[in-house]
């Protein structure tokens, strides 16, 4: 039974029916899904969740959909106790939420699964997105499963090799000969002109809700408790706010106790408007022009930036940026301690966590969860210099010699 009742403006409170909508008509602010939590609480229980499938859809009661879900097997990814990395950083209770292990290798599958399910309910036969990688792959994969058309817009500057993981699903791939900003503006216009389900524009309220399942899963995997600290990367800020919302909802439904989690947002220094705003004590996230190699989180004008800022502040958390160099060190540290090859956004989270621990902000005994939101292979060229093989001839002598040199 669906418990979503309406869409509600996050600023002015104006309510709308559960439709596709870009922003509030009155104040042009983002809208979000509103639920009947009282009715939901009568149905949802730990046991009911535990009886569900081992995917994100075990939380179906808390998601805004009615019809059959478009599911490619997303979610319920591992929460690993990271003892090696914890020792390296000085944390006794560190966990990694490894969302690399989703079907298209990033957390976007959670959000897209809900958005495409809703798109089908709302009667869209075409879905679309603009992306440089993870979102594009996820949208294309879900479109295949849902048997709907998909348009994926990509800046022409994205290397063709990166698009293989998108093109394999056979969406209509459109490369736009313009800057990142040009693609942004064009897609906002296309979304207005064509009656398509634009995943992160007019379906954004539903898209957002899928990311809540990260918060749900972590709490369930910690045997129904919320962590002391959460460290997560941010681009639009949506994921960060929805981890928090997920924890809050579980508490409201009495599946966990009060949430005392400190939320720490991390960004690449070359694209860190949320961190800037936090550090400046500002109430507004001023847009910046991204300049970072961490392309998966290079968003200069984050749609949920203000709300991410509020979550960091209200939870008693914080914000931390890291240089590209430190992000790459973070990727390597994660790979070489825990065996997880994350994309650079994961390196940002690890390097951000390191800075927070070194500064004494996150303490050794705090139960800390760091979110790894995407896998490394899609953008592996940024760490290509790790390849330093022993070069030998095909004989034992050559190998022995190389071994003695390298030893």
């Amino acid at each position, binding site marked *: 039974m669906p418990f979503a009742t309406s869409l509600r403006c996050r600023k002015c409170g104006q309510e709308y029916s559960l439709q596709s909508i870009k922003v509030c008509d*009155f104040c042009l602010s983002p809208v979000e899904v509103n639920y009947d939590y009282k009715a939901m609480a009568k149905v949802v229980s730990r046991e009911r969740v535990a009886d569900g499938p081992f995917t994100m859809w075990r939380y179906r009661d808390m998601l805004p959909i009615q019809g059959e879900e478009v599911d490619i097997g997303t979610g319920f990814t591992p929460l690993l106790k990271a003892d090696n990395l914890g020792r390296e950083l000085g944390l006794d209770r560190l966990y990694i939420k490894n969302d690399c292990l989703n079907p298209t290798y990033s957390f976007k599958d959670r959000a897209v699964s809900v958005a495409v399910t809703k798109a089908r309910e709302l009667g869209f036969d075409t879905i679309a997105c603009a992306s*440089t990688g993870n979102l594009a792959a996820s949208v294309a994969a879900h479109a295949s499963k849902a048997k709907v058309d998909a348009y994926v817009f990509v800046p022409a500057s994205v290397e063709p090799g990166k698009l293989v993981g998108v093109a394999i699903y056979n969406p209509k791939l459109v490369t736009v000969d313009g800057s990142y900003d040009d693609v942004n503006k064009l897609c906002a216009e296309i979304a207005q002109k064509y009656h398509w389900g634009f995943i992160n524009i007019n379906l954004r309220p539903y898209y957002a809700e899928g990311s809540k399942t990260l918060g749900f899963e972590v709490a369930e995997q910690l045997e129904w408790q919320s962590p002391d600290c959460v460290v997560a990367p941010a681009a*639009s800020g949506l994921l960060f706010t929805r981890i928090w919302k997920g924890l809050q909802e579980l508490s409201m439904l009495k599946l966990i106790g009060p949430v005392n989690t400190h939320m720490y947002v991390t960004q690449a220094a070359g694209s860190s408007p949320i961190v800037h705003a936090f550090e400046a004590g500002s109430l507004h996230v*001023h847009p910046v022009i991204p300049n970072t190699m961490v392309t998966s989180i290079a*968003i200069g*004008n984050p749609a949920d930036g203000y709300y991410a800022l509020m979550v960091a502040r209200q939870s008693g958390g914080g914000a931390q940026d890291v240089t590209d160099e430190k992000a790459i060190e973070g990727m390597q540290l994660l790979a070489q301690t825990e065996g997880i090859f994350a994309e650079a956004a994961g390196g940002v989270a690890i390097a951000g966590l390191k800075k927070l621990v070194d500064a004494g902000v996150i303490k050794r005994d705090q139960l800390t969860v760091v979110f790894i939101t995407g896998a490394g292979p899609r953008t592996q060229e940024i760490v290509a210099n790790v390849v330093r093989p022993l070069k030998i001839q095909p004989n034992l002598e050559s190998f022995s010699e190389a071994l003695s040199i390298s030893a």
Partner: protein
Amino acid sequence: MAKKQVMFTFPQELIKEPIIYNLGHKFKVVTNIRRADVSENKGWVVLELEGEDKEIEAGIAWVTDKGVRVDPVVGDVVEG
């Protein structure tokens, strides 16, 4: 008539200039402010522009040329 919803971000040196007023006079564009915040350092305004496509585009180009950053109201939509 087309409508376009945008956010203007003003640098400090332009805060005192009547740019939105001039936009409405220089171009056949109706400006309709929905939200705004202006401080001594920076200012932003979320507004709807209504008019012919060409007029809106020319108006935005003029505003951009003055040094105002113009963004879609939905934020950046190109995601990683």
